[in-house]
């Protein structure tokens, strides 16, 4: 099992959700985050003073997956979230040792979906 963490542009969340649904990935958890990356931020003005915004709003998605779902999920996210410009985001994948459904106590493969 894998745990996939994706950072995407906030405005792409709906598109990504849609793309995942089409691949039958219904479960995920979402948080907001501030991101610092190649997209170095932008310069804005507040009361006439330049303000370097280098922590940009990002949306963080966490999905636990059985191994065979990993590639389709990555593909779905990439295609839905890609605009081609800097700041599109990253996907990180780590190994998930165990997964437990609190309601039933089921574990691992059964619990994940």
């Amino acid at each position, binding site marked *: 099992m894998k745990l996939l963490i994706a950072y995407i542009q906030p*405005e792409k*969340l*709906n598109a990504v959700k849609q793309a995942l649904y089409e691949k039958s990935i219904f479960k995920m958890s979402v948080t*907001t985050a501030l991101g610092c990356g190649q997209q170095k931020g932008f310069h804005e*003005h*507040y009361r006439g003073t330049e303000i370097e915004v280098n922590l940009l*709003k990002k949306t963080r998605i966490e999905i636990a997956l059985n191994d065979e779902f990993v590639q389709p999920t990555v593909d779905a996210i990439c295609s839905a979230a890609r605009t081609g410009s800097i700041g599109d985001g990253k996907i990180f994948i780590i190994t998930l040792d165990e997964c437990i459904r609190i309601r039933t106590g089921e574990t691992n493969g059964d619990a994940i979906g």
Partner: protein
Amino acid sequence: MLLLTALVAVLAWPTLAQNDTNTADPPDTAEVVEGEAAELAEAAEDVVIDPAVEDMVLDVKFMIDNLWILLAGCMVFLMHPGFACVESGLTRSKNTVNILFKNTMIVCIGLMTYAICGFNLMYPGFDEVVGIAGVLDIGAVSGFITVAGDQASQDANLTKAYADYTWYADFFFQAMFAATAATIVSGAVAGRIKLSSFLIFSAVFVGLCYPILGSWKWGEGWLHTRGFYDFAGSTLVHSVGGWGALVIAFLLGPRIGKYVNGKAKAIPGHSMPLAAVGVFLLWFGWFGFNGGSVLSADAALVSLVMVTTAMAAAAGGFTAAMVSWVMDKKPDLSMALNGILGGLVGITAGADQMAVWEAVVIGVVAGVIVYFAVIGIDRFLKIDDPVGAISVHLVCGIWGTLAVGIFGAMAGVSQFFTQLLGVVAYAIPTVIFCFAVGYILKATIGLRVEEVEEQQGLDIGEHGMEAYSGFQTFSNV
């Protein structure tokens, strides 16, 4: 410039057709219920009162009347933060700065354009403005802002020679009114309109469309002559603003994500406390809006108007809440708030004509109307109006105008058709004007922001700042 003149000419058709000489007198709404002033005058006729004494007493009465108009103007002023709160509260947090900016600018621009041309366009009668050549006589139009500061003109403008109130007080009250018409549009187009286009639209709307059309009734124009009645502006202010909202929202199209596969989706507002506080401020301001439209501190009329205003709002809010409770299983706060506003808009045309129970009935009907109008516009017209401005101001504005022919002291079949005539007479030129201006803007600088800007929010796109810096928000759920 040519285009503008053409537009103005369109607005001017009935006036030109009629060739009436409208007088420059300020409007007198106290025609039906006998007021204090009349009583005073009567008393003065019965017995011989020393004219010096009478003058002294009338000077004091003038002070009160004038003070009330000014206070009413201040109360109407509070409607602007009210609108700002309602509109930002009922939309997403990523567009909040933009909405606040628009609402702030509308007051500033509204006051200035009204001083530059609106006030004089509205009140001296339109025929003085469009001269023989059909072009604007700038001199006559720009009367208010260029008023001389010398003693002579002050005497004429600052004494009771003008009316129950000074010319300045009249301007103050009317200018606060005027800006509300543009604010109505603001809510319906939130979240996608280009800032510069909106500001230009507002300026011409407040500076030309509203006052010229307003002069037809309040400037004692042709509709006034026909017996059309609109006490404080169900049609002149709210429907006119509502038509503007409808046209521009239609030209803009819905926000991204509002219609998915043709089905309307809800896009919840980001702050219900803001929305609720805004509605309370509007309600408060409305006491000045309607109460001040008596145009004197006449005890009878102002008391009556305050009570009818309060009761229609209460009835509207309660009804809309109950309807949403029945229809959607749970009572919707935003609907209750819209119901209050609907009741207020509904009573505005006949606030001085209704008995208490009639005000309640008008409010109840407005509450029902608002609910179904919001849903109808959302689902069937598929016009995206984030705050329900069209339902509240246009639909209830029409209802209120017609209600004058159904209930109250003026009710009657012929009055009903006069009211209907008024509704139509205001609808046509407003729609044409707004389409024209909207179309020109669309063709030139563009009406709508870029898609990515809309998705990131207009706060970042148009202003480069956030409304709630430091708060973790989901901007796209």
